[in-house]
């Protein structure tokens, strides 16, 4: 195959997988028209599920697979995909980076569309640098961490990073902007603009949702995403070369590749075009030692060389490819960091002393120690949640649990018969449960308590039963007692006072969401009583 064809094959593959990634990301929600094709009304045990394979890219991802195996001792569902990618890398090098990885494609695109560097400076930037060892350090750190029981991989794993950034920051952020424009149009006195705003909603809402989405700390997720994209101005595909731990893993496994770069030193005129177009800073120039582990298999050097001095060939020889240039320092610091982090992460006492009452995990979440061995912080559960209750944590789970999911009941609530979050969790940090299990077990995620000072009937202000009305259990966990209270004028007023029955309360938080006292409702939900923890129980 000619070099030109290979490059086009790569571009087609990159486009395909990038679009597939975005498609699956957008589809990670209950579609607005789900009611047209789906009904559970007449079958008692069916649950609402997404019909797209939204976890596909997580299954492909060897870093997620490996860290789940080492950390949670779990062989992920669909691990054969992971295995296929590892075999592919062993045989052909980092083709995942060059052909498949959507984050890599994004960096490739950003570096290519408006290169910040030109000519000699670009050649210089594409020479191999010692900083490329950083990714091995990060990889070793994350893997050692994971083996000891703290899985931080998702913070830097490219698929999780991209998913989290796009799902929690980019799309909701654009949604705010687009909605702002439409609201402006809708308020206009010009009829055509009004109609335009209604019409546009039909196209916009399926992607951005009918309501404003909110994700706490999303500004930081978005900022980090912008910074990582900006780094491409310093060096093309900065992330892939220097930071990506998945790239490091694939680089290490590419040593046995049979797809090798052949160099013909005699033909080379040292025009430097290969280096100028190299995506991985992998020393493609004749006279240099080709860095197998750094090569992103983009075929640019092969394609650009005017003298045919370079060629990718399948060579089965006992001679192995060049060993990944890891360096002793990266290994040592990686080990030290990898051992320290899990220990330091426990010093906030979340696991051994008492956990934060605001740390309400999604229904079906494993107990905290196991949860942290598997959660990738990818944001899939947050994206998929129909009530927007699941949010990334800041400090509620300690630094060890940064960006793991947490339910914020003032923002939404956990719907009684919904188990969507567990059904999409790629690693099983949230178990797949059915609505039946959730109700009959019951899976408690916390418990509610009343703040009588703010409660409208308790404080003698006005009758109100909103919390009790919405309580989804049967019999209801919130019950009412008739009582005569004095209102602020001193007159007698008959009200129904709400009480919480802790035996029945499952902590779904709908009472907190719907309470008329906004912001800090008069009925609040805390994690105490959650069934995933043996220690965090209230009742005998």
């Amino acid at each position, binding site marked *: 195959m000619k070099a030109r064809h290979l490059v086009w094959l790569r571009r087609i593959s990159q486009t395909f997988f990038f679009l597939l990634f975005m498609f699956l990301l957008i589809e990670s929600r209950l579609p607005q028209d789900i009611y047209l094709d*789906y009904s559970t009304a007449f079958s008692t045990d069916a649950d609402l599920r997404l019909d797209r394979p939204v976890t596909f890219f997580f299954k492909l991802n060897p870093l997620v697979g490996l860290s789940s195996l080492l950390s949670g001792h779990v062989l992920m569902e669909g691990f054969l995909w992971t295995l296929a990618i590892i075999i592919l890398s062993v045989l052909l090098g980092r083709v995942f980076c060059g052909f498949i990885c959507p984050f890599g494609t994004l960096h490739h695109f950003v570096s290519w569309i408006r290169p910040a560097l030109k000519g000699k400076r670009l050649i210089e930037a594409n020479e191999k640098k010692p900083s490329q060892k950083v990714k091995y350090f990060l990889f070793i750190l994350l893997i050692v961490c994971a083996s000891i029981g703290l899985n931080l991989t998702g913070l830097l794993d490219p698929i999780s990073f991209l998913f989290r950034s796009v799902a929690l920051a980019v799309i909701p952020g654009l949604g705010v902007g687009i909605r702002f424009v439409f609201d402006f149009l809708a308020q206009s006195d010009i009829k055509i603009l009004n109609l335009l705003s209604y019409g546009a909603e039909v196209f916009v809402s399926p992607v951005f949702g009918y309501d404003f989405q909110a994700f706490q700390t999303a500004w930081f997720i978005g900022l980090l995403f912008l910074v990582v994209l900006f780094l491409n101005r310093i060096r093309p595909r900065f992330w892939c070369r220097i930071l990506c731990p998945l790239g490091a893993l694939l680089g290490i496994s590419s040593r046995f590749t049979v797809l090798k770069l052949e160099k013909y030193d005699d033909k080379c005129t040292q025009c430097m075009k290969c280096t100028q177009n190299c995506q991985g800073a992998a020393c493609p120039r004749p006279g240099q030692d080709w860095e197998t582990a750094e090569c992103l298999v983009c075929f640019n050097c092969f394609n650009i060389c005017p003298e045919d001095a370079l060629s990718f060939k399948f060579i089965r020889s006992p001679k192995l490819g060049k060993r990944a240039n890891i360096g002793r320092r990266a290994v040592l610091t990686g080990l030290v960091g990898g051992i320290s982090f899990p220990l330091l992460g426990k010093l906030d006492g979340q696991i051994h002393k008492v956990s934060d009452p605001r740390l309400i995990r999604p229904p079906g979440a494993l107990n905290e120690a196991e949860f942290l061995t598997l959660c990738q912080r990818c944001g899939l559960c947050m994206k998929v949640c129909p009530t927007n209750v699941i949010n990334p944590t800041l400090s509620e789970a300690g630094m060890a649990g940064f960006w793991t999911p947490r339910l914020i009941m003032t923002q939404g609530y956990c719907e009684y*018969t*919904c188990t969507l979050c567990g059904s999409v969790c790629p690693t099983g940090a949230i178990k797949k449960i059915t609505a039946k299990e959730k109700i009959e077990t019951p899976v408690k995620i916390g418990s509610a308590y009343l703040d009588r000072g703010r409660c409208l009937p308790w404080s003698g202000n006005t009758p109100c*039963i909103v919390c009790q009305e919405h309580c989804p259990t049967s019999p209801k966990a919130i019950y009412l007692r008739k009582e005569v209270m004095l209102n602020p004028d001193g007159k007698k007023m008959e009200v*129904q006072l709400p009480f919480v029955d802790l035996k029945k309360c499952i902590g779904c938080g709908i009472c907190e969401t719907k309470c008329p006292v906004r912001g800090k409702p008069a009925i609040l939900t805390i994690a105490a009583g959650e069934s995933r923890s043996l220690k965090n129980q209230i009742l005998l």
Partner: protein
Amino acid sequence: MNFTRPITRRESIKKLAVISGGVALSGAAQLPLPTLAESNRFIVEGIGQTEGYAVKDLTRKVFEEAGGIKQFISKGDVVVVKPNISWARQPQFAATTHPEVLETVIELCRDAGAKKVRIVDHTIHDARRCFAISGAGKIAKKTGADLVYPRESLMRGMNIRGDRLDVWPVFVPTIEADKLINLPVAKHHSLTTLTLGMKNWIGSVGGSRWSLHQDIHQTIVDLAQFFKPTVTMIDAIRIMTRNGPSGGSASDVAVKNTLILSDDPVAADAKAALIFNRKPNSLGFIRLAQKHGLGTYDFEKLNQKKVTV
């Protein structure tokens, strides 16, 4: 947000009637609106007695007994059906309107030549889940009716002109119609004792609905005088007797095999209250609605009919 109230088709017709009929009482808006003579109003009770009767047959029979759907729906009408599908609960828990009743009513409207039938409810649980689990979605697909996804952009501040509520966000698709059919399910409710027809209108407004409960009877009546349905059909095929309005357990449900159809919203609620062994005048919102001239709970005065299947 625009706080002026757009003139609906219904209103313009009414205005036209006022002008041509020469009802020139100044301040008529403050007085109870002159309604049809009570004897011209009807109430039909349909009961399914035979074992294994079809809910669809019962629904059709009830409408036939009332003079046929064409009495209410004309050719080319835009019809809005307002069921209660607010909870993501399966139909057998009686938290939502019986899907077969909903389906039949839409079919009847279609038979009468309705141009468009729209299912409208501002749900409490996530609308997508409500539509899928209550069966409304499948019915929309089957019958070709529109199912409106409730969202903030469809709420519009309007002057309710109630005693307690003035400007309140209204779920616009409810009122942009020629005919409005109220299709609630009869349920227990902890504050109002029962939730029947008139309370169903809380599902047609937006805003801070949770604060309506602070003066629930008055706000129900305020909304009932704003949304005036062509007819109300109360689904009491199976009713929720406790743990309302959400329920969720088979033991909360009693089977009554009854449908009530009336053009008097107060009478319909009153009749349905009897199914729960409640005296109509023991319910605050029914008493208050009669006082405001929305109808009568003394349904003996109405043209009463009964049909069994």
